[in-house]
């Protein structure tokens, strides 16, 4: 029984410790990666890569938007 308790305690200590160590390393690795990326591969400008923004305009009642939306929807639909 004591043995079980000590197993549980050591699981807690090492488990929590490891989670913190791992996520701390991830914080650093992520920060380092972000810096590298921003330095060596800066984004020209955030472009709307997909047709979703057009689709999002669907509620607007203009006729032209409607056609654009349609085309986008049908296009994406066909891809499926």
């Amino acid at each position: 029984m004591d043995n079980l308790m000590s197993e549980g305690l050591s699981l807690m200590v090492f488990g929590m410790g490891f989670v913190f160590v791992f996520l701390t390393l991830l914080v650093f690795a992520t920060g380092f990666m972000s810096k590298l990326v921003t330095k060596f591969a800066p984004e020209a400008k955030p472009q709307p890569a997909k047709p979703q923004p057009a689709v999002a305009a669907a509620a607007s009642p203009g006729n032209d938007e409607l056609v654009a939306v349609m085309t986008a929807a049908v296009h994406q639909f066909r891809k499926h």
Partner: protein
Amino acid sequence: MDKLLDLWLASGIYNVTPGQVFMILIGLLLLFLAIRKNFEPLLLVPIGFGGIMANIPEAGLAMSAVENAIHLGGPEMLQTLSAALNINSADPAVVTHAYHAADAATHTAAVYAANDHGFNNGMLYNFYTVAIASGAAPLLIFMGVGAMTDFGPLLANPKTLFLGAAAQFGIFATVIGAVSLTTLGIMDFTIQDAAAIGIIGGADGPTAIYVASLLAPDLLGAIAVAAYSYMALVPMIQPPIMRALTTEAERKIAMVQLRHISKAEKIMFPIVLLILVALLLPDAAPLLGMFCFGNLMRECGVVDRLSDTAQNALINIVTIFLGLSVGSKLSADKFLDLQTLGILLLGVIAFGIGTACGVLMAKVMNKMAGGNSINPLIGSAGVSAVPMAARVSNKLGLEANSQNFLLMHAMGPNVAGVIGSAVAAGVMIKFVG
């Protein structure tokens, strides 16, 4: 007239046990909670329905061929099985025990004996074998979740990973709880059981199912039901704890807007995470590997059709089978046990402790940074329960300050919690698996 008698003797009414009635009612309750109360319906509808099917008397849908042979085969079959299992007793309970304890070759001999007499695995048992015992279904769900996850908020504020780490304390505190109950003689959990129960506090369904299938398959039903139920109850469990641990002023803290994250950063993140897993904790590689793979498919922009399928057709198919398979573990003899009550109790405590630790960690980080950059309300999102916990943070934030939209800020610790509990799962598999 013989036939009529046969029908009656084989009918559900004649054979039903009180346990089965009770479990069918539990299944109906889960359906009610899912459909009317909107408790994680995508999982609880299949789980509840599977639970009802698993408890249909005499149908044996959740039983293996050998279990069906033991139950329905009569004395001669039991004799044959006891011979195959190299035991001397033909008592059903003894045969069942020997079957579960048998080594692989003996196990196969028993299966052959059952098959030779026309007994087969029940449908749900087959689903369980393919979907969960193989480990495939939780991993594929995790891949789909990865493909649905936007790490942007986390990348914009990587420090929120600490909140995701702190909230995992709920997991390990629960392990201690389970171990204590055993030490006190109230329950009877092994360290494997305790670890599997603890992972409920991870507030992440597929991780809980994956760990339970490896460490404590008998408790899987109760663990999965507890995990999904408490995830649905997050809007009720968390707010009082969050209010108790924060001041009005803290809840009003406004956070600076998140910076824009470039596509390249989003592509690199799953790769960085995978490499860190590879270097530090290989036991978390299946879970986090599939998660990172799903996320890379999402972000890389060149395999949109695969990403779409991972997020839709594939995850839906797997969810159906996963749910029914979990339901197959809701059979009366496995679920109706004092242990289940213990699991339900420990699970809610795990959620509570995780929530509290997340909030407290945020306050500690504010202290250490000497500023007020983090609203402690987003700490509770570190338990995961994506995206429910983040919405709860947002809601409480708006209550304190109607201009304070915390949703995006809370998504950081929220997805960090997913990573955190997968890491915790890896540690547990490593140490007690």
